[in-house]
């Protein structure tokens, strides 16, 4: 057999042996307990969101302070938008996950284009601030829906141009 021949390696399943045959919790029970545990932490969520928004607002101010914008500031906005995307829904704010997803995608696809369109980045961040300040949990209402759609449309137009 040559050195280039791929090998299939059967790894002994030590984990199966380790956990044995003890029955576990029902999945619905696990979900209920996890949701309750996450709810118990919810009084901290406002602080977490507030921290993210402070960081992203500061990065936005830094980006707007120079032409062209400081690349580190844009990178910071991208990073925080990614965190907001990843945690918004878990923290009870699915709208933050949606707008974080949109903003992260906008910067990630073409950072130079995003840097030339700071107003559009600012509009996403304004939406985040609006959701947090008004504590818009869940999917929001028609106003939030319209704002999200407008942001999405603006990004799409730029992507086509």
């Amino acid at each position, binding site marked *: 057999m040559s050195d280039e021949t791929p090998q299939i390696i059967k790894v*002994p399943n030590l*984990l199966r042996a*380790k956990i044995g045959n003890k029955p576990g919790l029902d999945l619905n029970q696990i*979900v209920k307990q*996890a949701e309750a545990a*996450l709810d118990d932490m919810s009084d901290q969520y406002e602080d977490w969101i507030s921290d993210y928004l402070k960081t992203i607002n500061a990065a936005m101010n830094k980006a707007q302070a120079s032409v062209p914008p400081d690349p580190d500031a844009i990178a910071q906005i991208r990073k925080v938008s990614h965190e907001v995307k*990843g*945690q918004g829904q878990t923290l009870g704010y699915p709208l933050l996950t949606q707008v974080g997803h949109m903003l992260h995608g906008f910067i990630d696809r073409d950072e130079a284009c995003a840097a030339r369109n700071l107003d559009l980045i600012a509009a996403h961040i304004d939406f985040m601030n609006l959701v947090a300040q008004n504590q818009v949990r869940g999917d929001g209402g028609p106003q939030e829906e319209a704002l999200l759609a407008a942001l999405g449309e603006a990004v799409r137009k730029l992507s086509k141009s």
Partner: protein
Amino acid sequence: MSSISLEALSILVVDDNKHMHMVVKAILNSMRIKNIRFSDNAADAFMELRNWHPDIVITDWAMEPLDGLDFVRLVRKGADSPNPYVPIILLTGHTEMHRVFEARDSGVNEILAKPISIKSLYSRLVSIIESPRPFVKSKRYFGPCRRRNKDPNYSGPERREDAELSDNVA
């Protein structure tokens, strides 16, 4: 899905975001998994792997200076890796298809999208235990077999570098 007790598992969570540590801990605790450690960067995680020998690693992708995939490659291919076969779940907000392929090709066992879903995390853990995939070692890849399904009707050419495969036991 089979109901198996996961409480004997030890899990290393690697994420540079402390909030995610708390979220993942709450979810794992609800599965009665208490033996959990946290690292906020890849270098510390590598040390934990060496000194603590967790059963499973859950890692974020977006970290600095080494990102989650750098960490996975170190674990899988590093000459001084303490356990190249440790099951790794990548927890990530990067869900674009090209990113998923990039993650898969780094050698992760499972990919779990953020926002984290309780059911999805549970199913990934159960899958690692109940349906472990063999490892493949080739010129370009080392990690869990990337083929999840065998199609009995597939009649095309073998697409690995060489059809002759050897069966080894780690």
